């Protein structure tokens, strides 16, 4: 018999994944409080977004600080399709995903020639350019932004006003999808190539790993799901403008759960989101009035986790001792 630790581990992860999915599906049922419902929805949405980031930033090790661009593009594409062509966001979000993937490829094509910090800074700048362009682009509402028209309670447009529950299942489906994509990738040739590129690009090349196509594939998948997340977010909040979906701080918000939860791991984004999103929302709600304390707690938390758990919070749970290489980032 071939004892295979990898297959065994992957099967266990899948079982755990199904269990977590069941828990998250049941979780909102007893909750009547809208604030808490909203908190859970945001947490799950960020877990999905961060998993999408994790595909490029974690598994492939390309620390993108410009993912807000794909998020914003997704939000704008689906909203514009809805507003001006009447295409419902359930279809529009896939168009948004495709545009997001193409954008990620267009950004990746020049930027993947840059290494380490040069890449990270370039992604910041590209994101900022996107922000400025949308801010001045009258066709998409410029600084005024876009309102998503309400067409009555319906699933096609993902519009629900009487209850937040349907939206809970929309974001849960999104997060579950990104999780399963990451799970499939982890066990595939791509996943191995990406991690090899992250850990040591020279060694990867000597083993016939196609470095540039690997990065591009990771970017496309990552951009696709980030944009879908943006489309969902736009439907959830009902109003978008450059500051709410394209600000550079968004790029960091998307990356943070994966980074602090455990970069390049299946559970890192969810664990990170569970810690970060409620912290940030609760401190803002209860201490935001005092001005600044919420940011201090949030910033301090980031510093403490990054220093105390460099491999992420998942290492506390002992789920999988995933270790990021010393080279796992800019060199």
């Amino acid at each position, binding site marked *: 018999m*071939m004892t*295979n*630790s*990898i*297959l065994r581990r992957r099967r266990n992860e899948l079982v755990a994944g199904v269990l977590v999915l069941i828990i998250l599906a049941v979780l909102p049922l007893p909750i009547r409080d809208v604030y808490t419902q909203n908190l859970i929805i945001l947490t799950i949405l960020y877990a999905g977004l961060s998993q999408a980031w994790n595909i490029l930033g974690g598994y492939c090790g390309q620390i993108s600080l410009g993912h807000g661009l794909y998020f914003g593009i997704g939000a704008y594409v689906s909203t514009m399709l809805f507003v001006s062509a009447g295409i419902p966001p359930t279809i529009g979000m896939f168009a948004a995903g495709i545009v997001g993937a193409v954008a990620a490829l267009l950004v990746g094509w020049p930027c993947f020639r840059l290494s380490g910090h040069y890449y990270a800074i370039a992604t910041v700048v590209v994101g900022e350019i996107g922000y400025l362009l949308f801010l001045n682009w009258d066709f998409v509402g410029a600084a005024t932004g876009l309102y998503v028209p309400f067409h009555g309670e319906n699933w096609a447009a993902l519009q629900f006003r009487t209850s937040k529950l349907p939206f809970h299942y929309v974001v849960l489906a999104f997060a579950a999808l990104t999780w399963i994509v990451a799970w499939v990738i982890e*066990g*595939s*040739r791509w996943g*191995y*190539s990406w*991690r*090899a590129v*992250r*850990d*040591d690009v*020279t*060694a*990867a*090349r*000597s*083993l*016939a*790993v*196609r470095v540039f196509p690997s990065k591009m594939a990771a970017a496309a998948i990552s951009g696709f799901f980030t944009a879908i997340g943006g489309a969902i977010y736009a439907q959830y909040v009902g109003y978008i403008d450059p500051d709410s979906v394209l600000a550079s701080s968004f790029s960091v918000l998307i990356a943070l759960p994966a980074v602090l939860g455990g970069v*390049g791991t299946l559970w890192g984004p969810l664990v990170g989101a569970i810690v970060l999103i409620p912290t940030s929302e609760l401190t803002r709600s209860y201490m935001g009035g005092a001005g600044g304390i919420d940011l201090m707690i949030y910033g301090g938390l980031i510093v403490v986790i990054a220093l105390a758990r460099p491999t992420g919070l998942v290492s506390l749970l002992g789920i999988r*001792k*995933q*270790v*990021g*290489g*010393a*080279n*796992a980032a800019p060199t």
Partner: protein
Amino acid sequence: MPPLLEVQNVSKSFGGVAANVDISFDVAAGEILGLIGPNGAGKTSLFNSISGEVSPDRGEIRLEGRRISGTGPLVCARAGIARTFQVVRSFDSMTVRENVMVGAFSRTNRAREAMAEAERVLDVAGLSARADHAAYSLTPPEKRRLEIARALATRPRILLLDEMLTGLTPTEAQSGVQLIRDVRDQGVTVIMVEHVMEILLPLIDRAVVLNLGRVLTQGLPKDLVRDPAVIRAYLGDKYAG
């Protein structure tokens, strides 16, 4: 039948400094060839040309008659050139088994096949017991074995070993030597750069001696150790006198 690998008039300079000058030699299938010479003789630079990491300025390198020089590491690896590195380069976020699977995936898209191949080469390299340990937790000699296993998983025709025995204790080096013989017995031709002459000379079939970027001489180990030019250029300090 042409030799397995032909190095013909290869020259390469870096920023005006000549690393290799007009280097030519052949490698026959199934042999263990030693590439020796003092520090700065151009051994690693030549390795980088053969593995495709750098393109020679002049000259050609052919594998079974097909030019591989200047085609890049990807084509060279596909064609059957595998290598280890002077400073070990393991994928530290992965287990030993996963490291090896990266190599195996160069020949298959199927995870099951890559796993089976990893199983096989881990056994050859004597790392089966460590398969599920994190790569970073290996001892230095184990890491060198890991590099060999990973390279073997690409099913190479030729394996380039860059100072794989340097810095090991005599016992570790002896088991390294045995591993290299096993690799050759599997039908893989070996070219090795090495400093530890006492271990290298009994192991290799033939040696090419480089000095100051040029081929000083080539031949059987037993003849080379008596060659005054070699003794002067390289073995000088240790053996001459």
